[in-house]
């Protein structure tokens, strides 16, 4: 295997991207904090205001990442989609397992709705971060 080892000898160009990876990771962090808050109340019913706020801000960050991603030029969408598909497959299994555990533990109503929405943000944010990180260095 041969790899380039001396960056000094390369004539480099600089590509600048908006912070899509940071936004989607931020969304992930917010839903994880919300999830920890909910789990810390189990098996009691958690007050949902703060969790809902974390969820809304997380969803907004993810939406911002999506908008910025859609507007990118000079970006390997083919690589992004390839990686995204595999990553979302893995994360869907994880999310389904968490949802199953909450349903099995009799979580119902608004709590279940918030957990489900958090899992949707989780399922979209992780593949977005992974696929963006890979695709930013790729060329179609």
């Amino acid at each position: 295997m041969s790899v380039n080892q001396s960056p000094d000898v390369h004539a480099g160009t600089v590509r600048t991207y908006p912070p899509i990876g940071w936004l989607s990771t931020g969304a992930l962090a917010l839903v994880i904090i919300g999830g920890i808050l909910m789990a810390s109340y189990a098996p009691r019913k958690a007050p949902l205001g703060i969790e809902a706020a974390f969820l809304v801000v997380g969803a907004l960050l993810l939406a911002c990442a999506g908008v910025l991603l859609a507007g990118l030029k000079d970006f390997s969408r083919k690589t992004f989609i390839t990686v995204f598909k595999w990553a979302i497959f893995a994360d869907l299994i994880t999310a389904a397992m968490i949802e199953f555990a909450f349903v099995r533990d009799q979580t119902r109503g608004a709590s279940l709705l918030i957990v489900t929405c958090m899992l949707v943000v989780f399922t979209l944010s992780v593949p977005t971060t992974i696929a963006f990180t890979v695709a930013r260095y790729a060329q179609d």
Partner: protein
Amino acid sequence: MTDTVRDVAPTPFEGPPPERPKIQIVPLKGLPISAAAVVLVTVSIATNWQWALMFCHVAGGGLWTGIDLFVGLVIGPILGRLSVQARAEFAAKFMPKMVIIMPTVVMMTLATGFQIARKLGNLYATSPNHPWLIASFCVVGIMAVIALGILEPANIAVLFEMNKPVPNGELIGRLMKRFIYTAGITGLMQVATLIIMTRVATQ
């Protein structure tokens, strides 16, 4: 705030790049083992099968903690002292396996751990273990953000880079550094997990 990528042109060389076998980023042979673990966890939760819950939690948690400690505190520093070429060679063999192993052991540990805590009454605010469990949730939360938001994307980006006809050594080196530092942090956080879990088991 913007992210800047230095897009380094490959080193000029004469003739076509040497033929290298493609790296299989997701080792498909490992998927049945992973699927079996998912089935076992699902059945153990659905049926409240105490032995299986405990087995998945202890086996998954032991592997997760051990792998994180070993990779973060032993392999990571060694990798940091190797040449980029050697790091790339190692990563090509090591990282695809981690792509399968880590999500599987993490899923086994967390899904069953929550059920065990619920069954044993450790989730109740009156339980002496409740504060320790909250601390454990926080440690796991931080590790999840680091692993899913920084470490795993860097791993997969390294593998994709190495599948290019002429991999960019500088980029691989930079991404591997990210891997080494984040693996070190998660390794240290696993020490906290060990302290918390042994407290929970002995109170």
